[in-house]
């Protein structure tokens, strides 16, 4: 299981939890499990999210592997100028 930290406004769809646990070995797994377990997150995930994995931010790396002890933080999709 991977512990995933969510940003505050997503708690509405996770029964108030700011950290949830899902079974995931990759970024894609993580997104799929989150959508299945918490369907309210699906619109945001479809619009785009980034993932911080042990402090490194990934934007679209579906196959990025996640270790069970990794720090995983869901973030909005990064934008820049």
């Amino acid at each position, binding site marked *: 299981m991977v512990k995933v930290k969510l940003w505050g406004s997503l708690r*509405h769809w996770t029964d108030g939890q700011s950290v949830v646990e899902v079974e995931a070995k990759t970024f894609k797994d993580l997104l799929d499990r989150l959508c299945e377990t918490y369907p309210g997150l699906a619109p*945001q995930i479809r619009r785009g999210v980034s993932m911080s994995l042990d402090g490194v931010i990934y934007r679209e790396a579906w196959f990025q592997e996640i270790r069970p002890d990794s720090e995983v*933080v869901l973030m909005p999709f990064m934008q*820049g*100028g």
Partner: protein
Amino acid sequence: MALDQPKREFRYVGTRPNRPDGVDKVTGRAQYGADMTAPGMLTGAILRSPHPHAKIVSIDTSAAAAIPGVRAVITGADFARPDDNFLRDVQENCMAREKVLYDGHAVAAVAATSAAIAKAALKAIKVTYQALPHVTDVDAAMKPGAPVVQAGRALENVPGGMSDNVTNACEFGHGDLDAGFAKADLVIDRSFKTAATHQGYIEPHACLASVTADGKADLWCCTQGHFFVRTLCSAIMGMEASQLRVTPSEIGGGFGGKTTVFIEPVALALSKMAGRPVKIVMARDEVFRATGPTVSSSMDVRIGMTKDGRITAGEANLRYSGGAFPCGTVDMGAQAAFAAYDLAAVRTYGWNALTNRPKEAAYRAPGAPQAIYAVESVVDELCQKLGLDPLMVRLKNAAKKGTLSSYGPTFNEIGLEATLQAAKAHPHYTAPLGKNQGRGLSCGFWFNFGGNTCVSLNINTDGTVGVTEGNPDIGGSRASISLMAAEELGIPYENIRTIVADTNSLGFNDVTDGSRVTFAVGLATIKAARDAIGKMKARAAKFWGIDEEAVNWVDGAAVPAGPNAGKFPPLSLAEIAAVSPQTGGPIAGHYEVNVDGAGVSFGVHLVDVEVDPETGFTKVLRYTVFQDAGKAVHPDYVEGQMQGGAVQGIGWALNEEYIYGADGRLQNPGFLDYRIPVASDLPKIDTVILEIPNPGHPYGVRGVGETPIVPPLAAIANAVSRAAGVRLTELPMSPPRILAALKG
């Protein structure tokens, strides 16, 4: 991406060769968007709304179409309505449909055989409007009963019961705010406003479109991302991507503002209708009225601090408006607001509201300068009131490795403390100040990212090298990429030419944004060079009759890996290239990747100002920028980014603003009334580059383009507030606003 063979000793990287585009630019030979021409070309022009908000009752184009020389007239009805919300917004921003949403919104366009005929045709178009109530202020737009710009655009994250204009909400942070504030000896709660500002690029948007009868199209335009232009335009026009080739021109500034389309779909639609090439060049007033400035903002910040300078809690409420269409920029501001601090309790809330203003476009580090301006202003005021050194307070509270960031992740190695220490050690920090003078300091932060990147590297038979990349050169990327190729290949910089390819000549490259190009394209170039080196080593191995693994690449030549490989004289790149037709054919290297690992970036700005108490005029006396750039590939360009950010920030802080009248129309759509800094307004901008290697890049490179716009607003506001003896809480701090503050 795992770091392989990190390189820390350099021969070419870190030098300052002449810029490859310099001669063309100073002699006028460089081809910008407006310089493109084609046989039979028509002039395109766009009719824009004089109303900030109105229903389009009817558009009669018959008189315009009947004018001799007019070859095409289009309106919003000539575009299919995309299903996708994002695409539909882009299309409707280029050409309105049922409603106009801001002063300057496009309603129709013509293509004619001359500019004079096009202008006459625009005058002949009869648009009947039904004016609607408008709103241009973000706080007013969020109130119940405010005029609704677009209904039904709120995301699922917006709580019920809010104004229909509120489209987006977010929250970040951790810890117990109440407990944090209870520990403070002083809590300050302040509200701030910042005006929308334009990126101020000198080159107006321009494009030339040519659609042929068989459905193929070419588009030449000034843009920060021609592959994304292709994505948007092909979707809006209902074309296959392969049938639309987009070629970028030289670019006269972008700063994020040229990361989308405004006129390109219009030119394509006109060309399709006319059957001839169509060129559109925006006038300056069109650039102001109808392209994308940054968000306007209204913010409340509350911070608690102990007497010895420890921040106990921080809270921010950010209300941004990205104009008439939804945008998520406030997400970035809310994440960045407190990123420089190690806080036990922190919370940021963000809201975006629609207003009758042009659709926001990115502007370097979008969303961060506003939020950090508000936070850093309150930190400075706390330092003033508690009698503390503002730099020492920032050092005491600085985020570092292991800090739980205000936006969620735990920081790895970051350069904030080192940057603050550099500022502390600099003579600027202790230089004496005179009467009516003040010194301001601010930290800044930006995320940076990498993205989709594709590079080809061709070894020419004369021993020179061509690098093909897919990002317009907006900040010296051709020089930086050539330097990294030279470093890796071991041949002189002068032997390499880097060009920017069109969309049919290379795989997809993301837009030039996120401070990504030197980092991501540089990484791909290094990998492409390694690919080519592998092939050259294989050719040498064949010459020598040994295994490829027994060949090394040293100083631009293949050499035997050791005594067991045999004794052979080195084979240089030029020698291998010269016989490449006889040894297997052309040699090229390629690399395609979606890069991550850009690494966040911090900067510190220090500024001295003098405020004239009689006129409210602020003179910037001294300015120093400190920034962790990772390895500075071409230090001139890095310094240029740092200086440019400071200069844009000076304009944003002191003078620049979109001014709307009570009628909802933009009052200052030109550089006479929208005042950007000119050379005579500025001191020399000093720079200190810190080179803390980014572990996510083979050479330790970190993006540098956006962070420099983040600290100036607060640094200057803090300096002005200290010089004036009164806290300024609204940007720009124009002379009338400073005088009003001085009078209380």
